[in-house]
């Protein structure tokens, strides 16, 4: 069963790798940010699977903390684009 959990974790890690393409290709900042947020959910799942695979229950706390705090970066992103500098959206090289 542990091998099964590890296989699933590996699959999710490969998913993150595939998603990295969107982070690098862009082209808009929003695309990159949403991809990173999806990594947040995938990362929580990967951590939970690893905690089962390695029989170490306290890794679940890392998943818990991760799930709570990933939203911070989005808040900062929205704040900087909507209340901060308007030209950010036009700037494609952002």
């Amino acid at each position, binding site marked *: 069963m542990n*091998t099964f959990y*590890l*296989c699933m*974790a*590996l699959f999710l*890690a*490969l998913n*993150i*790798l595939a998603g*990295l393409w969107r*982070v*690098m290709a*862009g082209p808009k*900042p929003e695309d*990159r*940010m949403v*991809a*990173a947020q999806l*990594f*947040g959910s995938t*990362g929580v799942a*990967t*951590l939970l699977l*690893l*905690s089962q695979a*390695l029989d*170490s229950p*306290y*890794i679940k*706390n*890392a*998943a*818990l*903390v*991760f799930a*709570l*705090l*990933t*939203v*911070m*970066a989005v*808040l*900062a*992103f929205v*704040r*900087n684009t909507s*209340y*901060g*500098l308007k*030209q*950010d959206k036009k*700037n494609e*090289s*952002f």
Partner: protein
Amino acid sequence: MNLIFDLIIAVCLVGISMRIIFARGHFQAIVLFITYGLFLALAWTRLNSPDIAIAEAAVGAGLTGVLLMDTLGAIKTSEEKKMRIKVPLKLAVMSIVLVIVLGYSALQIPSDFSGLSLTVHNAMPLSGLEYSVTAVLLDFRSYDTWLELGVLLTAVIGVLTVRRRNSLTGSALPAPAEPVGRWIIKILLPFMVIIGGYLLWLGAFAPGGAFQAGVVLAGAGVMLWQAGHPCLAVLSNSSWRLLLCLGFSTFLILAASSLYYADQMLTHPQIKAWILGIEYAATISIAICLISLIQASPNSKLDKVS
């Protein structure tokens, strides 16, 4: 299977860090850095260090992203120059030498080497704590923890000095209170406070402790500030400073007072209250220091207002 997973994580860590250095846009580098934090947390998980995995997940996922985004928002006013980053040859040679030396010393470690864990395990009854990592941090090497609190405090003072600000209160909120922010606060704030307390309490007998709890509570404070909730602004300047110094000064007071009844500094009586006092003070101090770092760091909107 384990080997494949480890290899993928290792390759990703190196690949992402290279991509961060060579990324053309700053924003892309920031998003990659957040992802890098996730892979680092996975790596620490595989290395069987849940303590560091929790800390890395908390810092990497949450606060670093906010700090970097704010910095980017502040420096965007100046025109961004697109330039190809060249790695100097000297630096490359030095890094390669460093990699060879580190790799060679890693190969020299015997496979049955247990480090200091046996020594720590034997000394555990002296500390009165149940969990070895907390015992090392707060008892055996409390001097280090004390100085680390000092480093955080110095960082805050440094940022305030560079920004020419003498108070942390009274600064404008980064955003007006809007429905989405209030909604997020309503859902997430209770969880953050509960989980912060839970991690703090967990530190006595399992992975967790002051730093992890402090970072989660700092996340709660930063969320309040980001969503435009003014409740942190009601703290007066003096109480803010008091909370900033709380962890460091608690250590200082306990270290000085321990000289009266013991020969060496930071020797503590076998009571839980001593450790708990330090741990609670350190948590509050770490949380307040991290919130101050983010509040005082460059922010495009605040700069325009002031």
